[in-house]
């Protein structure tokens, strides 16, 4: 019972923070709103029983991604036109399209939603079981993602090089 309430609460918080993201003016505040969304989502995951994902949500998303984001915002504190005029010319068409999108999604999802199997989650998402399953069944994906990370490292180094050359 309390779990349902908490679930609804966290979901609502996520939504609210997301809406705030679109409305706030200062990028720093937007970042904070996004962090709030992410934390709420972590809570949702935890409440759903998928603890391992919840933990990694906080660790990676909030801990790495958002920190980096905040760092960049602090570096680039530029008060230009995007500060005073938040929205692009496509505000109204964008809102219309988004509403249409939601309507279609709602229509489609309402028709064909898979039945929850009702099976107990049990220890499926416990760390030990999860990691065993992950590295047994999906080891290829794991390796490919590590290749992606290597590529990202190389790209970061390249960016550094470009920056260094530019600075002369």
């Amino acid at each position, binding site marked *: 019972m309390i779990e349902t309430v908490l679930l609804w609460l966290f979901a609502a918080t996520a939504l609210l923070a997301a809406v705030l993201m679109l409305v706030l003016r200062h990028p720093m505040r937007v970042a904070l709103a996004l962090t709030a969304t992410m934390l709420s989502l972590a809570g949702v995951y935890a409440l759903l029983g998928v603890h391992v994902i919840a933990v990694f949500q906080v660790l990676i998303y909030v801990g790495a991604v958002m920190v980096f984001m905040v760092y960049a915002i602090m570096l680039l504190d530029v008060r230009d036109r995007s500060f005073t005029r938040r929205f*692009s*010319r*496509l505000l109204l068409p*964008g809102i219309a*399209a988004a509403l*249409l*999108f939601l309507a*279609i999604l709602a229509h489609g999802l309402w028709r064909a939603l898979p039945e929850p199997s009702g099976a107990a989650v049990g220890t499926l998402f416990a760390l030990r079981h999860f990691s065993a399953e992950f590295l047994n069944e999906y080891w290829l994906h794991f390796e490919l993602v590590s290749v992606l990370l290597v590529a990202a490292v190389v790209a970061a180094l390249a960016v550094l090089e470009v920056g260094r050359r530019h600075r002369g």
Partner: protein
Amino acid sequence: MSHPLAVIVLLPLAGFLLNGLAGNRLGARFVSAIGCGLPILAFLVTVKCFLGLQAAGGAPLIDIAYTWAVVGGSSFEVAFYFDALSAVMVLIVTGVGSLIHVYSIGYMKDDASYARYFSYLNLFLFFMLLLVLGRSLLVLFVGWEGVGLASYLLIGFWFEDPDKARAGKKAFITNRIGDAGFLLGMFLLYTALGTLDMDRINAAFMATPLPAVSASLVGILLFIGASGKSAQIPLHVWLPDAMAGPTPVSALIHAATMVTAGVYLVARMSGIYLHAPEASAIIAAIGALTAFFAATIAVVQTDIKKVLAYSTISQLGFMFVALGVGAYSVAIFHLYTHAFFKACLFLGAGSVIHALGGEQDIRKMGGLARRIPVTFATFTVATAAIAGIPPLAGFFSKDEILWFAFASSSGGSPLLFAVAATTALLTAFYMFRLLWLTFFGRSRMTPETEHHVHESPASMTGILIALAILSAIGGFLPLPHFLGSLLPLPEIAPALEHFETPLMVVSIGLAFAGLAAAAYLFGGDADRAERLRRRFPTLHRVLSGKYYVDEAYDWLIGRPLYWISDRVFLRLGDQKLFDGSLHGLAALGRRSAGGLSRVQNGNLHLYALLVLVGIIASLAWSWRHG
């Protein structure tokens, strides 16, 4: 010789090919030898065939050279047919043709395109022989078109001069208008009879029951073709302009042979015309009108060749009068005598022009009788012949025509006779006028021309003498009797028979009256003619302007056609419609590309929006289709 007729036809073709392809390289002697030798050879073969025809008692010689096409049940062959009528025509074509070829050696001696001239002349001869020897209307038509082509090539022989080139075009186009009628006639005949062989067509019309086609309609259509080729009203306008070609060409094509093709066609198709009284009446009427009309114009012409051109039109009109009243053999008789004296006149005119170094205006001639005596003598003989002074050739044939115009029971009438007689008077008048102004009186030449005057070489004067002799004695050949079995003379009403001798006297009287009038007006110092002209200025102007027929054609036909071509077809059709649609397509592409390229404005917001729209669209589409 197994195919003598084919040989006659092919000899000039060989001449055309040899001279055309190799003439320039092999020199003038070769060109003259081939160009004159082959027609003379053709003439000799013709004489042989003619003797063979006499020996066979007039039975026609048929020579099937080549089967061109077999369509369904009918076959189209290239076949030649030689009977009495063909014999007369081929003898004239090859005989007079050869004489004119020899004359051309002297006349065209200094011309740069000597080989081209002779090759075209031989080409003309080839097509003309196809025309008169052809058995079916199809072969005749090939020859018909071919002589039109050769005429165009020869009229526009000195094509660097745009006027002369234009004259050639005019001749060809006017002929083509007539040919449209000819083709329609051929189509009708083929649909009704299933064959185009002329002997079979005549046989079908002479048998009973008559074929299921209106003989008058076919007759009129064929006559339209004939009037195009033989320069009858309203398609006569090309002949005076055709004088732009070299004079021997005018003699051969526009006096002796090509223009007589129309007369030959009608005479050959006599089977049809005997059963087509309306068509025959029209032919007689147009012939008489043309004869009178052209004679009136000839009275005031000042170019020596133009006088002769209008005279030719007028004499052709006479021939058509004879055809119209059913006297087909008489028309051929006149064709035959006309070939001699008209060729002699034209070649004589050529000799005069040659002697004067190019002068053609008779107002600038005079006093030449003693200086170029041979030309003068032959010209006089030919003039007397055309005026109808007995016992020269023209008298016999013209008198026969006048007689049948009056007395023939199939169309003869006093009115027709009156018009023809008046024309005969005018003919005598203007021909003697020409003679007087050219050869008699004080010299009106410019000093340089006078210095240049000399008699023509023997190759030219020899031919003139030969033709003058033929003009003199040619009338004694009883041609109507020779053709009598083939082309019977029309019936004469018994009541009119006693008019024959009086009318003969009248026609002789007319000839001498014309001579007298010309001598009176132009004899002394041409002053009386000047005074006459000043008394009737409007008439003189209308006649000099050739009744303004060319101007009328230009105004009624030429200008509207030009307007339609320019406004409707060029500006509207071609430029607006075709070019416009192409340009429109291109402009459409350009404008749509311009419009569509505004999507790529570099703005990420727009791209993201378009992605969203795309997602919506694909979701909607996939969920609509299940």
